[in-house]
């Protein structure tokens, strides 16, 4: 087994927050005595990531994803547990570590707002001590991959959200980090920009072999980029394993979609083949047990004959599968 790039053991982060009930009396009481409560943002998670892996880190809002990324990047000190990234303890923030990693947050800017990105790149070149030849090669490569040609000469404040995100990516990767933590990298972007960013991340991983841990609420990001996912909820790890296995284990059914000629969808009785989920404009969607799906599909094709225009058999949408993981809160870690 290769040495893990990211190794996390029983990592915990507890925040102490102040609580106050509404109303004047409670406000006055809180002047004298504050009521505090411990919130377990990350409640002891363990996982490892090997070199070159692109792993999706999934969970609902408040699950502890961003807190974990902040600990792994060195921004936060954990309450307990261990973590090593590239053999460094992240929160010691040694310069050698900071030069080997990046944390990119989709809704945050790290560029100087009032100057063109090209000038910020020069500042970063000096901060990271990047030799001139390497700097030029990296900037050229990032410019080509992200289509930055015109953008880097405009002050950052004049860029659109999508343009700014591309430039932020370039700034975050200018020192060629071997580990990248991406927190919601496509948040707020339109579909075409999301696709471009996804393509870029995949290409960056292919070209550099960088290890990437990515959070996103857009399942398309995860499906396009990650073979493996780690699912956490309420600070606890619920699933760690291949994305492909997740549907099989959490959603033991397939979705059969049959398109019928002549609007027959509304009249044809298909209850015998599985649970009818929806009927719309000549199309019937059925939920069928995974084990019997091939046999039911064959029967459908046979029984409907020429009335059948099209048929497809698929796993349920990944959003639905993930939702089932959150709802069940059952822990499943692949070996």
């Amino acid at each position, binding site marked *: 087994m290769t040495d893990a790039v990211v190794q996390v053991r029983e990592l915990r982060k507890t*925040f102490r927050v102040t609580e106050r009930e509404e109303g004047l009396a409670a406000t006055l009481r809180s002047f004298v005595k504050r009521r505090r409560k411990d919130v377990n943002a990350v409640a002891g998670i363990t996982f490892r990531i090997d070199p070159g892996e692109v792993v999706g880190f999934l969970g609902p809002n408040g699950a502890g994803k961003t807190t974990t990324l*902040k600990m792994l*990047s*060195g*921004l*936060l*000190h954990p309450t307990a547990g261990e973590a090593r990234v590239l053999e460094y303890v992240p929160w010691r*923030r040694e*310069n050698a570590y*900071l*030069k080997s990693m*990046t*944390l990119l*947050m989709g*809704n*945050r*800017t*790290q560029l*100087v*707002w*009032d*100057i063109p990105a090209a*000038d*910020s790149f*020069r*500042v*970063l*070149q*000096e*901060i*990271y001590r990047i030799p001139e030849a390497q700097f030029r090669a990296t900037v050229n490569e990032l410019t080509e991959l992200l289509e930055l040609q015109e953008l880097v000469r405009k*002050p950052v404040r004049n860029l659109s959200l999508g343009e700014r995100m591309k430039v932020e990516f370039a700034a975050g990767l200018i020192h060629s980090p071997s580990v990248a933590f991406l927190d919601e990298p496509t948040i707020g972007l339109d579909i075409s920009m999301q696709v471009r960013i996804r393509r870029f991340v995949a290409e960056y991983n292919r070209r550099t072999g960088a290890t990437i841990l990515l959070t996103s609420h857009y399942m398309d990001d995860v499906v396009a980029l990650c073979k493996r996912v780690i699912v956490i909820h309420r600070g606890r790890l619920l699933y760690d394993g291949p994305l492909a296995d997740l549907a099989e284990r959490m959603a033991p059914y397939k979705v059969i979609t049959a398109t019928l000629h002549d609007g027959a969808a509304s009249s044809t009785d298909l209850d015998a083949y599985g649970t009818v989920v929806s009927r719309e404009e000549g199309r019937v969607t059925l939920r069928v047990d995974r084990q019997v799906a091939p046999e039911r599909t064959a029967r459908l094709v046979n029984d409907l004959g020429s009335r059948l225009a099209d048929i497809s058999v698929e796993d349920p949408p990944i959003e639905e599968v993930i939702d089932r993981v959150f709802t069940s809160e059952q822990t499943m870690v692949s070996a």
Partner: protein
Amino acid sequence: MIRTYRALLVAQIQAASAYRVQSILWMLFSVIRPVIFLAAWVAVANSQGGQIGAYDVRDFAAYYICLSLVSNLTMSWNAYDFEFEVRLGRLSPKLLRPLHPIHYSVVENIVWKVTTIIPLGIILVFVSLTFDARFRTTPAHLLLFVPSVLLAAALAFFSGWVLATLAFWTTRVHAVSTFWDRAAFIFAGQIAPLALLPGPLQAIALALPFGYILGVPAEILRGGVSVPTALQLMAGQAIWLVVFYFAFHRVWRVGVRQYSAVGA
């Protein structure tokens, strides 16, 4: 590090050029207060036969002109900016780079001072002519002023950072720094030259750090203290600088563990 500073300086000058009007207004604001005090002391002195203690009208003019210059050269606004950065999580990108966040602040301070010194100089020459200021400055005073104002600027910078670092524990540093500014108002030599404060207040002022940031270098530049006294006062500056330098390192090390990176 020199190359890093050069790159940061270039970027900061470019960014500052976008806010040149704002910079000038800030500079004017920093001059208004001493000029108001100057006008008030001139009025008081004139009503008392033109002299208060060792100061006549022309001495007051020289003192407040020197104070304005020192105020501009030592001003440090880290506490305000830093609270904002911590509260909104804007500190995070800086913490993730292999460069201590304090360096960005050093550069911002240098650029602001360099870009405002010429217009300030013109205003101060104008004020000097208007009030017929009398400087008692000798070459020795000028020579001592350089290290004294550097010590004062470093002292203002590090004491500002100690206050700023409180933002790791409370996101309302503004209240603390306002209290600090009010104390400075009395004890730094703004309301009156330190030599004119009543005995006990003067002793307190010399035991506190505020006077070493403004009043002391201003008096050295004006030539208002003898060279041996100036050297003693500079020793006081050095002691306070050492205190705040180590306090900053200690508070930073503990504080950064508290950082909750809210929102980012």
